C-alpha cells in the first residue's frame, strides 16, 4: 500500500455529506470505476456474473454494478474498491476487452431522498430528461450546468450523479444550491 494519502475530488481527506430536509448528498470517493468496450465481434461478456445492461439502463449484481455508456461500451462500478487496481481485476474477468481505468475520471455524488418526488423535483432543476428516461433502473449521460454528467437511478429514492473529477467543486455547488432551493419549495 502506497504511503501517499489520497484526497477526494472535493479536495478533502474525507467524503463530504450534506442533508437538506428531504435530500441527502454524499460524495462517494470509494467507488471504483472501469470502462469496458467490446472489441470487434466480441460477444458481450458477463463480468462478475453481471448481465451488461441495455442502452439507457443500469444493472447491479452483488458487489458490482454497471451502466450503459455507449454502443458496445459500459462503465463497471465496484463500491468500496477505489484503492484497488479495479481495471486490472476487470481485465482478468474480460480478457480481450478494451478496458480503461476510470475511477478518478469521475466524482460520484450519491443523492438519497425521503421520497421520489423530492428527487424528481431536484432533477427538474438540473437536467432536461424526461422522467421516463431516468426512472429506476435507467442511466443517462446528459448536460448539467454546462458539465457532462452521468445520472444513474439506483432506486426510486436514490440517484447517483457522476461528473468529471475536475468539475467536482462546481458540480457539488450546483447540486447543493438546487437541493437547498427544492427544500424551500417542497
Amino acid at each position, binding site marked *: 500500500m502506497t504511503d501517499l494519502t489520497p484526497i477526494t475530488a472535493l479536495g478533502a481527506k474525507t467524503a463530504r455529506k450534506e442533508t437538506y430536509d428531504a435530500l441527502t448528498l454524499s460524495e462517494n*470517493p470509494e467507488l471504483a470505476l472501469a470502462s469496458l468496450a467490446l472489441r470487434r465481434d466480441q460477444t458481450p461478456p458477463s463480468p462478475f456474473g453481471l448481465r451488461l445492461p441495455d442502452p439507457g439502463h443500469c444493472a447491479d449484481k452483488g458487489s458490482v454494478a454497471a451502466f450503459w455508456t455507449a454502443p458496445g461500451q459500459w462503465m463497471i462500478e465496484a463500491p468500496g474498491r477505489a484503492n484497488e487496481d479495479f481495471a486490472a481485476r476487470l481485465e482478468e474477468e474480460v480478457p480481450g476487452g478494451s478496458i480503461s481505468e476510470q475511477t478518478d*475520471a469521475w466524482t460520484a455524488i450519491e443523492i438519497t431522498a425521503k421520497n421520489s418526488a423530492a428527487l424528481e423535483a431536484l432533477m427538474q432543476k438540473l437536467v432536461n430528461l424526461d422522467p421516463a428516461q431516468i426512472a429506476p433502473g435507467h442511466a443517462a449521460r446528459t448536460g448539467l450546468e454546462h458539465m457532462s454528467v452521468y445520472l444513474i437511478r439506483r432506486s426510486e429514492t436514490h440517484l447517483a450523479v457522476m461528473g468529471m473529477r475536475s*468539475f467536482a467543486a462546481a458540480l457539488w455547488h450546483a447540486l447543493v444550491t438546487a437541493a437547498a432551493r427544492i427544500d424551500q419549495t417542497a
Partner: protein
Amino acid sequence: MTRLNGGLVDRGTTLSFAFNGKSYAGHPGDTLASALLANGVQLMGRSFKYHRPRGVFSAGSEEPNAMVELREGARQEPNTRATVTELYDGLIARSQNHLGPLNRDLLAMNDYFAPFFAAGFYYKTFMWPRAFWEKLYEPMIRGAAGLGRLSKQADPDAYDKGFLHCDLLVIGGGAAGLAAALTAGRAGAQVILADEDFRLGGRLLAESHTLDDAPATGWAASVAQELASLPNVRLMTRTTVFGVYDHGVYGAVERVADHLATPGPRVRQSLWRITAKRAVLAAGATERHIPFADNDRPGIMLAGAMRAYANRWATAPTRNAADPVAVFANNDDGHRTALDLMAKGVPVLGVIDPRPDAPRLGDYDLFAGGVIDGTKGRLGLSAIRITQDGRSSWHRCGALGVAGGWNPNVHLASHHRGRPVWEETLLAFVPGTGGPSGLFPAGAAAGKGSTAAALQSGMEAARKALAEIGIAATALSLPDAEDAPIRQAAFWHVPGKRRAWVDFQNDVTVKDIALAHKENMRPVEHLKRWTTLGMATDQGKTANISALAVMAELTDKTIPETGTTIFRPPYTGVSLSVLGGGDTGAHFRPKRLTPTHHWAEEQGAVFVEVGAWMRAQYFPRPGETHWRETVDREAKAVRAGVGLCDVTTLGKVDVQGADAGEFLNRLYSNMMGTLAVGKVRYGLMLREDGHAYDDGTCARLSEDHYVVTTTTANAGPVYRNMEFARQCLWPDLDVQVISTTDAWAQIAVAGPKSRALLERIVDEFDLSNAAFPFMACAEMTVCKGLRARLFRISFSGELAYEIAVPARYGQALMARLMEAGADLGVTPYGTEALGVLRIEKGHAAGAELNGQTTAQMLGLGRMVSQKKDSIGAIMSRREGLAADRRRLVGLTPVDPAATVTPGAHLFAEGAARSMATDQGWITSAAFSPHLGSSIGLGFLEDGETRMGEILVAANPLEGQETRLKVVSAHFIDPEGERLRD
C-alpha cells in the same frame, strides 16, 4: 377605501402599500391596479411621447398605460404593469415618465408640440444637419426616451431554470383551460396547467356568470382543487408560457416570488423549458377598444376590465351618482358591463352603441346609433360628448367602459410563422394552420368565447390532443353555462378631427396612421416602424387590430388583405435576469480544477483561466515584487535543477483495439503503427484541409493500447474527431476510444536533476538513460506501490519526464516530490514559465497552431508521411499550401533592451509597410532569462535561409517599430542533447 359587495379579495386582512409616497390599504387578492382604483386613484402614469395623463386601461397583462416603477433600491423595476402586480404588504410603487409630480408633469408641454411628434418624426427631423446626430439629437432622444428608470445596481435576487416534461401542456386556466386540464388529468395523462394569473379561473373570475346556476367562481375553485389533488397534474400559476419552440418545446417564466416583498431564500423567478407531447392553447382573448376623440383620459378603460374590477376586485372607478359610468360598445357583450355595475350598485349613465338596432339588455339608457366623439377632464374623465342622430350633447361622466369586441390571443399559435386567419363572423383573427404542430387552440383563443363553447372546446381539444399520443380521455359532464351569440358591428373608430388614440403606450393616433398611409408606409411592417405602433412592452395587444382596421379602411382593402405582422416570442416581456437562469458572474460557467489545485493555492499560486481550467500561472515567493521576477526564477530553476508543473489539463485518450495502430496512422500525419511498445512519439494531426490542427504524444503501452495526448484547448474537439473517424469514416476498424483526462494526475518533472528526483520515489525501477531513454514510457509503481505511468518526454528541452498517477494521489505526489527534491532545488512552475521554456526551445503551441499554418511552416514538413494516407495528407500537398514559403524562426531584438511583440508583422528594412511587402508575423514572445533579452517566434518568408538577417517588426496599432535579428527557433540546445542525456 370603499368596496363594492362580493369579489375575491380577502377583506379580513389589510395590506398597506405606497404609491408616489402616499400610503394606501388593500387586501390579499388585489393587484396594485385594483387597490389603487379602490382607493379612488385613477391617474397612474404618463404616456410615452406626449406625457398625457393616463389611468389603468385593462385588467391584465395587455396593459398599455398603468406601468410603474415597483420596489426600491437595487430591486427597483421599471415598466411594471400595475394590473398584474400582486399586492403585498409594504409594496412601494411610483409612477414614471414625468418630470415633477405626476399631476403636474413638466414634460406635458410635449403634448403642445404634438404636430412635431407625428408619425415618422425621428426619420424626418433628425436627418439634418448630419453632424447634429451624435452631439445633439441622440443624447437628447436618449434622455427623453424610455419610460421607467433602471436602478443601475446589480440585481440582488437569485434566478434559476428547470426542465419539465408532460403529455399535455395547457396554456391558460380559464374555462377552456380548466376543462382541458380536467379532461386530461382524469385520463391519467401527465398534465401541466400554466396560467399567468395568481388564481385559476381566467374570465370566470371577472364575470358574473353562473355554471349550473351557481357562481362560476365556485366551479373554477372546485376544479382547481380536484386538479391539485391529482398527482399527474402540475398546477403552475404566476407562470407565463411566452414562446413555442421546435418540436413541442415551450418557454415559460414562473414568478416564484414576485408577489413577495423580497424572495428570501427562494429564487425570484424560474425559467422553465417545458417539453410537451401536445399542448392546448387556452390563452383567452383580449378586448379591443374603439378609438374616438380624446379617448385616452384616466377613467376610460376596456369594458371587460371594468367588469373584472367590479366582479373580481369589488371596485369601480366611480361611485358618485353625479359622475356615473358610461359604456361605449359596438357589441352585446359590452352591455353586460352596464348590467354588472348596476347589479353592484354603481350609477350608470347608459350604453352608447353605434348600432341603430342595438338591443337593450337591461334597465339602462341606451343611445342606439350613437357614438362618443369628445371627452373632457384634465387628469381624469369628467364629461363625454354623445352624438346621436346628428345631435351632440355633453354629459357628466366619471368613467367610461369601451367595448370594441374581443381578439383571440392567437400569439402562441402564430409562432413558427403561423398566420392567423380572419373570421368574418367574429370580426377577429383566429389561429390558422402552419403554426406550431401539436398545439391545439381552444376556448376564446380559438374564437369560442361563450362560457359553454369554451368549456366544450377545451374538453374536445384535450381529448383530440391526447388521442394523438394514444391516451383515451372520456368526456366530462360539463355544467350548464351561458352561450350568448356574438353580435357586433364592424365599427372600428369614430372619425373626427381631434386626436383619437389607437396605441396608448406609443401615443399612436388614427391621424398618425392616416399620415403613414399618405406617406405610403402602408404595409403593416412599414406602418409599425413608421409610427411605432405595437412596439414596446405591451406589443400593441390592445391596439394592433384596430390599427389594421383603420389602415384597411384607408387603403380600401379588407383587414385580412392588410394582414398582421409576424408574431414572435415572448408573449409578454421576460426579464434578462431570468433568461440568464442564474448563470451570472462566477456562475456563468463551471470551473475545472487540477488535481494539485488546493496545494497550489496553499503555495500562493496565481491562477489563470485556460478554457474552463484554472491553472497555476506562477508561484510568487515572498519578496518578489513583479510577476516577471517570479517567472524568471521558475524558468531558471528548471534549466538549472528541476521543476514541477501540473500538466493534467492536456487531453488524454485511451485508444485500444487490434487496429489501434492503423487508426492512429490515419489520424496523425506521421507513422504511429510502427511505434514500439514502451515508446512515445510526438504526433502532428492535420485538418482534412491540410492545415496543422493539433499536436501531442502517442505512447504505446501494449500491442493494442495507446495513450495519446492532445493540447488542453483541443481535448474535446480532438476526441470528437476521433469518434467521427471511428464511427463515420472507418467503422470497420477494431478500435475503441475513451477519454481519461481526469483519471490521471500528470506532473511534468523537468530539468537536469529530474532523474535524480524521480529515482527517489520510484519502486525499484531503472531510470538510467540506457534502460529508460528519451521517448520511453512505462507502467510502474511509485511511493511504495502506487500505480503510475512514466513518460520521458520534454516540452522544455531539458531532461524531463511526465509522471501520471490516479488523480486522487496527484496532490500527495506533488507534495512528496517537493519534499524529496528540496535539496535539489525543486521548484514548482506555472504556465508562464512553461511558455518561456517552450519558446526558448522553439516548440509550437496554440499561437503557432492557429489553424492557418502548415506542417512545413512549423518546420515539421517531413513528419507528414508520404508512405500512407492520413487526414489532411492529400490536401497538405496542394499547391497553395505546399508553396507557402513561410517558416518558423526565432527572433531576437538588435537592441537587447527592446521588446519583441507578438502580432507584429515582419518587413525588410526600408520596405513599405503593406500587404505586398509583408514577410510574416510574430506568433509568440517572452523574456528569456537565459538569453537575457526578449525573444520571439514567428513565421517568415524563406525563414530557414535568412539566419542573421535584420528585419523590422511593425506594430502600427501601437506605433511600435523594432529591429530584430533572425535566429534559429531553438534558442536553447539546438542539437537536442540535453533531453537525450
